Structure formats: C-alpha cells, structure tokens
C-alpha cells in the first residue's frame, strides 16, 4: 500500500471510530500535561505545607487557595504532582519501548537473516527470559542497581526485547528469500544496508502494533516498581510513587490520594491499548479478530 493511501485510510478510520479518536485526544492531553505541566501547575509539586495537610479535593485553605484535587500528608498539591508525574510515566514508557524495540528488532533480524548458531544463541536467550516472570527480574536488578529514571528505562527496556526479537525474526525469515532481497544481494549491497533499508521497512508494521501495547504494559510495570520503591527517587513526583505514598493514609479513608494517580495511569494505559487495537485492525486486517 502506498504510504499516502495508508495515511488517508488511517485518518478516515480514526475519525469514524470513536474510541481510537478519544484515545488520541487523551494521549495528546497527557503529553501536553507532561510538556507544559510545570508551567501550568498551580503549585510547586514538592513544596510542603503543614497547615494545608490532607485537604479534600476542592477544599480551600485559610487564605482561600483552593486545592482542586486536594493535598497529601505533607500538604503537597495533588494536581501539581499529577501534572509532573505524567513526565515520568510517558518518558519511561516510550523510551524503554524504543530501547527494547531497537535491541530486540536488531537481534531478531540477525537471528532470522543469518540463521545457524546466531539464531540458536539469540533464541535460547529469549527462551530463558520468557520462562521467567519479568517483574521478578526487574526487582532484583533495580534493587542492586538502585532506583533512578535511567536504570528504570534500562531494565524495563531490556525486559521487552524478546517480544520484538521473536516477531522480527519470523518476519525476516519470510522476507529474506524474496526477490527484492536477492536483487539487492546481487547488486552487491552490503548486508547491514540490506537489513536496514530493504528488510526493515517491510517488517515494521507488526512491530509498531506490538510497541503500542508494549508502552501500555511498561507504564503499568513502572507504576508497580515505583510502588515498591524501586522506581524513580521519591523527590521526583510519579504516579506509581504517589500511589505508594497513599498507603499511609489508606486506613483513614483519604481516597483522593490513591484515586487520581490511579485514574491517570489507567487512562494513559487504556489509550495506548485502544490505539494498539486500532493500529492492528488498520495495518493487519487478517488478525483483526485475534487478540493477545
């Protein structure tokens, strides 16, 4: 399909289906919050204010400042922390998927193109990793490496490579005997260039579909790890971290501390999932009925 035709088809199907459109609008809003959040946030997300502790949503302090989503146990503004927190979730989710996707696609293509022992080694490694509940590996590595955005991205990214490697491998195997690859070889094009400029564009569609779902699951994993205290340092506001802090106030029924960050995570993840479903139906009509 020509790329312009695909684009207009994408646009039309996006406008027709209301869920994907809603997801795109939501994601746009969340991205906007991540980018300009700091300048529109009503308060400094880390400023503690003992007098204004645990205010209900829409409750005002004595000076008449209204806290739209309330304040936490240290008197920090929940809305401001939520706006800042969008950064961590989006950055970690997207960058980890890019890292994992790049590593996985490269290894998968190598395995598929060369076969033989390259294939064996890479795929056995993939088997080992697939045979383990990923979150456990993430826990042990982050515990040793220490928390931080970079480590989080690294561990979550490396955790995802297998998915891409398996798809890229299968796709590469089905492409490598095609005429256009033969032609490129006959013309003496170097292998690296055949892989990147000939094969890669032809195997990209399924990888992009998976990536959308993957961002969703990485954001969920990041939230769980932050909840365990293995995510970003406590000085950086993050949605998972806010949920972790909400536990201290759970028994006293201060629902807003847990409710809003959870909704933020859910809407973000939901949007990526809906987008993934839509992309799959668009790019790969055959598997329209199949779900993960």
């Amino acid at each position, binding site marked *: 399909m020509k790329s312009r035709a695909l684009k207009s088809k994408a646009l039309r199907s996006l406008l027709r289906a209301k869920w994907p459109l809603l997801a795109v609008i939501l994601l746009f809003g969340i991205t906007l919050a991540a980018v300009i959040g700091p300048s529109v946030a009503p308060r400094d997300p880390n400023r503690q204010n003992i007098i204004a502790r645990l205010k209900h949503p829409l409750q005002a302090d004595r000076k008449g400042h209204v806290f739209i989503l309330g304040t936490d146990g240290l008197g920090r503004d929940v809305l401001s922390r939520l706006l800042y927190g969008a950064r961590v979730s989006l950055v970690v989710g997207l960058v980890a998927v890019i890292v994992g996707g790049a590593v996985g696609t490269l290894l998968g293509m190598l395995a598929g193109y060369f076969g033989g022992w390259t294939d064996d080694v890479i795929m056995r*490694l993939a*088997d080992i990793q697939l045979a383990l*509940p990923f979150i456990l590996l993430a826990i*042990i590595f982050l515990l040793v490496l220490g928390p931080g955005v970079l480590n989080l991205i690294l561990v979550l990214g490396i955790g995802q490579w297998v998915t891409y490697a398996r798809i890229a491998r299968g796709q590469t195997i089905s492409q490598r005997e095609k005429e256009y690859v033969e032609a490129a070889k006959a013309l003496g094009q170097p292998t690296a260039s055949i892989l990147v400029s000939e094969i890669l564009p032809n195997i990209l569609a399924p990888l992009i579909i998976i990536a959308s779902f993957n961002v969703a699951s990485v954001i969920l994993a990041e939230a769980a790890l932050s909840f365990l205290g293995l995510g970003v340092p406590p000085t950086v506001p993050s949605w998972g971290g806010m949920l972790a802090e909400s536990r201290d106030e759970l028994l006293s029924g201060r629902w807003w501390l847990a409710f809003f960050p959870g909704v933020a995570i859910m809407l973000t993840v939901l949007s990526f*999932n809906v987008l993934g479903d839509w992309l799959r139906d668009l790019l790969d009509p055959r598997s329209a*009925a199949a*779900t993960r």
Partner: protein
Amino acid sequence: MALYMIRRLSQSLLVIFGVSVITFLAMHMGGDPTYLYVSERASNEEIIATRAKLGFDKPLSVQYLRFAEGLVHGDLGTSLTYRTPALPVVLKRFPATLELTFFALTVAVCVGIPLGVLAAINQGKPLDGGIMLMAMFGQSMPNFWLGIMLILSVGLGLRWLPISGRVPLLDPLLDGDLDTMLANLPHALPYLIMPGMTIAFFSLARTSRLVRSSMLEVLSQDYVRTARSKGLTELRVIMHHAFRNAQLPVVTMLGLEFGFLLGGVVVVETIFSWPGVGRLVFNAINHRDIPLVQAAVLTFSIVFVGLNLLVDLLYAQLDPRIRLGS
C-alpha cells in the same frame, strides 16, 4: 514422546541454569557484595575477613560454582535480616502465596471463559460491548490500584470484607490435616476474595478477550455451519462444536498466566498484608536484604519453570499432533 520429554526437560534445565547465572550476576552488579554483610562502621580488617569468609575474594567463576553447588543442595545463602538460611524463610511463606495464586487463577478462568463465550455469541450487541469494555479497563488498570480501591470501597466503606489477614488453608493440607482445612474454608474465603480478585482481574480480562476472539474464529468455520444446518440446538453447537475447539489457545496460555499472577502477588500481598512470599520480598527490598530477594526470585522461577513443563507435557499427552510430530 520420550524424545519430546527429554528435549523439553533439557530446555527447562537450561532455563534454570540461565536464571541462576542472572541472579548470581545481579548480586555482583552493584559492586563488592561484602559491604552488604558488614556494618557501615566496620574496620578494614573486618571487611577483609568477611570477604575471605564468604569467598567474595575468589574469581567470579569459582564463586558461581559455589553458588550453583549450594543451589543444588537447596542452600540459597543467608538472609541478612533473619540471619538464617534464606530458603526455609521463603518456603515457610510459600503456601500462602500459592493459595492466593491458585484462587486468582480459578477466578480468572471460571469467570473469564464464560464471559468470553457470552461476548462471542452476542457479538455486536450491548452485552458484548459491555464485557469488552470491562475487559479493556481491566487490562489497563494497575492491579494494586484496584486493590486499594477495593479496600476503600468494599472494605472500609461498606465493611463487607476484611482488608487484611489470612486463615490458612494450604498449610494444614500440606501437613495432611484435611479436616482442619475444611473447617477453615468458610473462614478463609472472606480473606481471599479481595486480594484474589485484585490479582485475577487483569488475567480475567485477558482471558475473556482471548476466548472471545478464539470463539469468533471457530464460529465462522464450515463445520459449525454444518452443525447448525443439520438442525442441532444452538447450545449444542456452541458447547460441543465451537467451544471445544476454541479451548486450545486458552490452555496454552494458562501456564504463562500462572507465572504472570505469581509476579503480581508481590505488590498485591503488600497492600492486603497477606503473609506470603510477596510481602516478604517487599520487606526484603526495604531492608536491602538481597540474598532473601535472590532466594525468592529463584524459588518463584523454579516453580514457574516446573509448572510450565508440567503443562506442556500434559498438553502433549492431549494433543496427538505434538506427541507424534516430534
């Protein structure tokens, strides 16, 4: 079949070897692990003595061999907080975790499959839409957040269910005391429901989506049309012709799903103060008790690998294509 079993068994061993290497290396990635075992004010002599005592001065390969030897003998090192061997500490908590995981898996299967079938036979109707909407949300919320919301609404608001604690079921059963287990059952269920639902919800959502698409695929097959045209009742067509064939991808998924649920318990047990391995790991993380986390991860992995092996072998027994094909 024998060949398939041997191949599958050696694969599992390779995986466990891989896990042992990874967890071993993880311990050394943060620098010299000696410092985990000595106090912050320890003198140089003390550090050197501890290093020599624990063998951290030897080359990595030698250390790994010692680690692997211990693993074979069930020795997974010493917990830093409990000051006792780590494996027994983990194993003591294991029944609680297994109990919760099995309960969650049962919920996911017993609710997820009927919902998926219902959605498929009502394709395009509001019921289908409703179930799929729920499934979409179920796959998008952090499970521990669902747990927190349940505690706030069902536990603290309505006061219907206890928000923490446990009445043991599996421990008496493992001791061979069936009577105690049965006597405990009615008291244990209220404690199981909220954490179990919390862990199960994601899998329940995924299962119902998978069953739905698998059913839809089967329902469009020729033999289903034939069954209908020869006048069989719709119920019979769905149960005998469609659902049977839609089961295969679901069975394959169950083994993996168990591991996924096992991964989810760490966070959920913490929220509900469930006395299992998950909460143990959470506390060990907070105390930086790396050997204990290591032991728990290894135990989980070995159980997971073992279960998947079991599922695959059973599956091969059931599916002649695998049994004969190899």
